[in-house]
């Protein structure tokens, strides 16, 4: 094995082990920043030793032991050895335990990983900081990778992560899983972080590219991990279902010149049926847990309607409209209403949809929302009111920040009156 092969292998092992390593260390040293540094120390040691000695049979255990030794070194330097040694010495004792030690250790890892998840998504951190920290500590992405993914300079991300760790330490945020009534709200913020990452990859808000698939994969992996850590929560499965099914369309969403293809125009043979199957299974899990009315489960159910339709014409729009109505009860928003309008129009005709869309024009939050104009343009066009439609498409084009989307909308504006000439 060449040096660079060995290096890549060790990096791959670290990617597999790092989140649990950091989580286990964070429980011991009570600081995620220090935990990460110790994990990095262990990686450096691995890069030094393993090319020669080979990757150990239990690389996770090797890394953890190494990191713990480094932790002792650090504490010795910090002169806290007296107090902490007892704790760590206890951790480092050779196991006298019975053969099911591995099972017990697995549970501990599961809990520690969960503690890390909740810590990375703590409310004391800004949304951006939560995203960066989660991708870093749980996703195992490097600072450079995160920066590239969000089209932000690397030093900005590095700073963001440093400040996030400091904020957690300064606020004395405990390394724990929240209990009781706090758990639901805290879990919601975890799901929000994962969904944010996915959306950043799925519908790039700025720049030239329509999608960044790597981010979608990262979000999906985090979601799936969470679903196994908290299998009893229906909204986690709801979110995973939503992500799996949306991701299933990645390959069909972009044309050969990078232009976006709307869902109803996509070639369904290009949809990934492995992911659709996974998504439907996750949705079923959510529903079996009694979570059919959760916001993520409802959004998943809506996208599942599309996934189940063999062709666009087979889409059960009436069901989608009903699901949006249910969604507007648990998570009301003008966007949900807009989507409901689209579904109503598809099910019952453009006039029905336009009625609701017209009512939404007075919504302040939608005033500069390009999709409102785009939808209104579409419905007006279907009703033959082409001049009004053109105005709306042009307005929508001026409001979107995505280059490709703007091109699409301007093309529609030209086409809707162009057809008349």
């Amino acid at each position: 094995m060449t040096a660079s092969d060995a290096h890549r292998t060790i990096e791959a092992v670290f990617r597999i082990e790092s989140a649990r390593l950091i989580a286990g260390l964070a429980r011991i040293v009570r600081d995620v920043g220090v935990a990460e540094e110790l994990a990095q120390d262990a990686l450096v040691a691995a890069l030094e030793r393993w090319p020669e000695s080979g990757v150990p049979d239990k690389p996770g255990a090797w890394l953890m032991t190494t990191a713990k030794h480094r932790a002792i070194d650090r504490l010795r330097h910090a002169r806290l050895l007296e107090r902490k040694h007892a704790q760590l010495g206890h951790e480092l004792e050779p196991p006298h335990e019975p053969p099911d030690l591995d099972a017990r250790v697995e549970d501990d890892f599961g809990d520690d990983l969960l503690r890390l998840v909740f810590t990375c998504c703590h409310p004391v951190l800004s949304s951006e900081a939560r995203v960066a920290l989660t991708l870093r500590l749980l996703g195992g992405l490097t600072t450079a990778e995160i920066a590239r993914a969000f089209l932000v300079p690397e030093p900005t991300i590095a700073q963001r992560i440093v400040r996030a760790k400091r904020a957690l330490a300064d606020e004395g945020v405990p390394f724990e899983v929240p209990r009781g009534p706090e758990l639901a709200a805290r879990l919601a913020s975890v799901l929000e972080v994962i969904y944010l990452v996915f959306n950043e990859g799925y519908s790039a808000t700025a720049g030239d590219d329509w999608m960044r698939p790597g981010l979608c994969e990262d979000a999906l992996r985090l979601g799936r991990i969470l679903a196994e850590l908290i299998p009893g929560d229906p909204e986690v499965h709801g979110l995973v279902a939503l992500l799996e099914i949306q991701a299933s369309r990645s390959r069909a969403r972009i044309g050969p010149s990078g232009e976006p293809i709307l869902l109803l125009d996509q070639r369904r043979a290009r949809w990934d049926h492995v992911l659709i199957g996974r998504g439907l299974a996750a949705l079923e899990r959510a529903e079996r847990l009694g979570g059919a009315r959760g916001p993520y489960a409802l959004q998943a159910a809506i996208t599942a309607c599309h996934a189940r339709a063999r062709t666009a014409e087979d889409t059960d729009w009436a069901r989608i409209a009903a699901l949006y109505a249910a969604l507007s009860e648990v998570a009301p928003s003008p966007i949900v209403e807009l989507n409901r309008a689209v579904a109503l129009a598809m099910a019952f005709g453009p006039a029905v949809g336009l009625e609701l869309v017209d009512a939404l024009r007075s919504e302040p939050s939608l005033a500069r929302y390009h999709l409102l104009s785009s939808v209104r343009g579409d419905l007006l066009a279907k009703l033959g009111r082409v001049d009004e439609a053109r105005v709306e498409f042009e307005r929508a084009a001026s409001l979107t920040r995505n280059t490709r989307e703007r091109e699409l909308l301007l093309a529609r504006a030209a086409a809707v009156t162009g057809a008349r000439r």
Partner: protein
Amino acid sequence: MRFMVIVKADANSEAGVMPDEQLLSAMMKYNEELANAGVLLAGEGLHPSSKGARIKFSGTKRTVIDGPFTETKELIAGFWLLQVKSKEEAIEWVKRCPNPMLGDSEIELRQVFETSDFEHATPEIVEQEKQLRESLESRRP
């Protein structure tokens, strides 16, 4: 990236010999590890080739041949589909698999083609091309 992980058949798997309790439980645990890590996309065991068939293609001619097939080392017994960041990661995951057979065995892994391999470039390649174009532009007399 995705990898297909292929478990090669042996005489036992072809004879329909079921794995023992210990292996079944070890395999279940391994599948859970894959799921817990969020890398498992799909995985199934395959019936012996006696339940399968082959279709031979020659021009427009199609010939169906029922199993079993005798060349065991050409046969497969099961597969996984994994979502990973690199071939090395796929290899590391496969190394952690319990030996799927009673004796010596083999597991092969193959990278799955994705649309970006066929069509439009990844953002990274687009960026590289953009930079190359820009540097070429700036060199024009």
